[in-house]
């Protein structure tokens, strides 16, 4: 694939790639740049490419004049709870599927393989009815509970547990360790990187989820950031700096999670696609 020596064509290709990457990120940059402008500077022609000195008015405005902080808190609580519960329960279930014997094991695993392909959106109507019956609409329970069971996490963890040598468990059992201890003292540490990877993927996915919060919440104080920010925007009318400021704030947790844990995110996506 490689010719060894750097050729003119190779250099041209690299330059093209770099330019393309910069262009690819330009929309994200443009959102950031706009958020740092005074509202009047957003609509001048020609557009201001580098807002200097940066102007934080838009951020101050949305934090003071909208429940943005509350939505942030809602989204943090929801995403952290979903991630924690999902990972914990999936680990336990995957361990049982991988190492323990019980009636219904095969049926459960087979149903997970079907279940992970069911599109969530097509179950939105019965789920909403169920939430109404449980009185979960506009509550954290309603936001969190339906997002906890992720068959994919169980499937991935089971595959990784299957590859842990059986001797590890046998030896620990002889030493009198409980299954619970074996899972959290042996299987978890051995598979730490994939557990971490799945946690980040699930956190990002839950933070970004739009459809479910849209359906299960309608009172302003219970909205999550991705849903709430669209409300703010329609209230502002033409206010691009403020719109972009909400976008910057909404993106910080997931963008930071990706930039800090790039390798893990990649690993998680490979595992989720079945490529390991």
């Amino acid at each position: 694939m490689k010719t060894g020596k750097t050729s003119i064509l190779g250099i041209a290709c690299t330059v093209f790639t770099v330019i393309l990457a910069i262009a690819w990120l330009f929309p994200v940059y443009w959102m950031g740049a706009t958020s740092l402008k005074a509202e009047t500077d957003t609509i001048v022609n020609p557009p201001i490419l580098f807002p200097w000195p940066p102007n934080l008015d838009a951020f101050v405005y949305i934090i003071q004049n909208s429940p943005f902080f509350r939505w942030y808190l809602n989204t943090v609580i929801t995403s952290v709870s979903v991630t924690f519960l999902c990972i914990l329960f999936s680990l336990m279930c995957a361990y049982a599927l991988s190492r323990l014997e019980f009636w219904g094991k095969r049926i459960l695993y087979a149903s997970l393989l079907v279940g992970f392909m069911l599109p969530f959106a097509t179950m939105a109507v019965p789920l909403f009815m169920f939430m109404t019956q449980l009185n979960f609409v506009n509550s954290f329970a309603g936001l969190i509970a339906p997002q906890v069971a992720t068959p994919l996490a169980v499937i991935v963890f089971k595959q990784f547990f299957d590859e842990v040598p059986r001797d590890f468990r046998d030896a620990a059992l002889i030493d009198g360790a409980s299954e619970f201890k074996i899972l959290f003292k042996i299987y978890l540490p051995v598979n730490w990187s994939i557990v971490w990877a799945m946690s980040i993927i699930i956190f990002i996915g839950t933070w970004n989820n739009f459809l479910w919060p849209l359906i299960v919440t309608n009172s302003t104080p219970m909205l999550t950031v991705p849903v709430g920010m669209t409300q703010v925007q329609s209230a502002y009318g033409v206010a691009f700096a403020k719109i972009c400021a909400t976008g910057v704030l909404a993106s910080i947790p997931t963008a930071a999670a990706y930039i800090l844990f790039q390798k893990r995110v990649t690993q998680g996506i490979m595992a989720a696609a079945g490529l390991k």
Partner: protein
Amino acid sequence: MPPAEPNGPQKKRNRNSWVAYAFVGPFLLFYVLFLIYPAVRVVYLSLTNSDIAGLGHFIGLANYHELVFDQEFWVAVGHTVYFVVLTVVPNTAVGFFLALLVLRLKRLRLPILSAFFLPFVLPVSVVTNCIALWMLDANFGIVNNLLGTNTAWFGDVGFAMPGVALVTIWWTVGFNMLLFIAGLQNIPVEYYEAAALDGANGFQRFLFVTCPLIWPVASLVLILQLIAQFKIFDQVYLLTFGGPSNATTVVLLYMYREAFQQGRGGYASAVAMALVLIIVVVSLVQARLLRLKSVR
């Protein structure tokens, strides 16, 4: 069966299986309540005239009968298929292209890869409202600014759906790129060396080594894309809400409107069932077609 000795394997197995149920229990509770139950209930609901609170009675196949003659539904199916056509193959091809570009690099590889992937981790409403709608704004958007035009892009019947597709590709192609990078890295270097020894030039090596060996990954990406794009909802809801003049009403948006605006829970469930059926049939057909091709 002989009675098991009190301390024999039988007893041990029972104890173990109680431990197993304790491990499976928490997941199973959420799984059954919030995934299995809704999945079963949507089938039943589609056979009722329920409202959105779930009140109604069994009406047999009446919803499906209505669906078959519901022009709006078929228009929505058509729009969804149009969106699928606009995204599945282009998104796969662009992902493959970006993967090839990124893998050529050495020191720049990681930053460039991140640049292409970053949009994928942004919330959909950021992508639509803060990026797409702002950049393509009719009066102040930078795109119109550069072109010297005043086009209301998402208000244009011809552009709206390709516009949604364009935004979707920019947003999600990083995922496909990652899968292709993994696939390309799995191709043994020896194959390229052997081909080079046989006198194959760069283009020939790409055509006769890379292409056939990347096919399994490509067909995986195509299937994943197909399933993902049939479920188009968020971007359309946020960018156009089905407009202009219904040009971008897709199946899930139609379902959403029937359920949460018209209050027709039963009928919306039938729409959901139809979408599941379409996805299953199309992905089976695609899997069959792709497998045939890979054998050849």
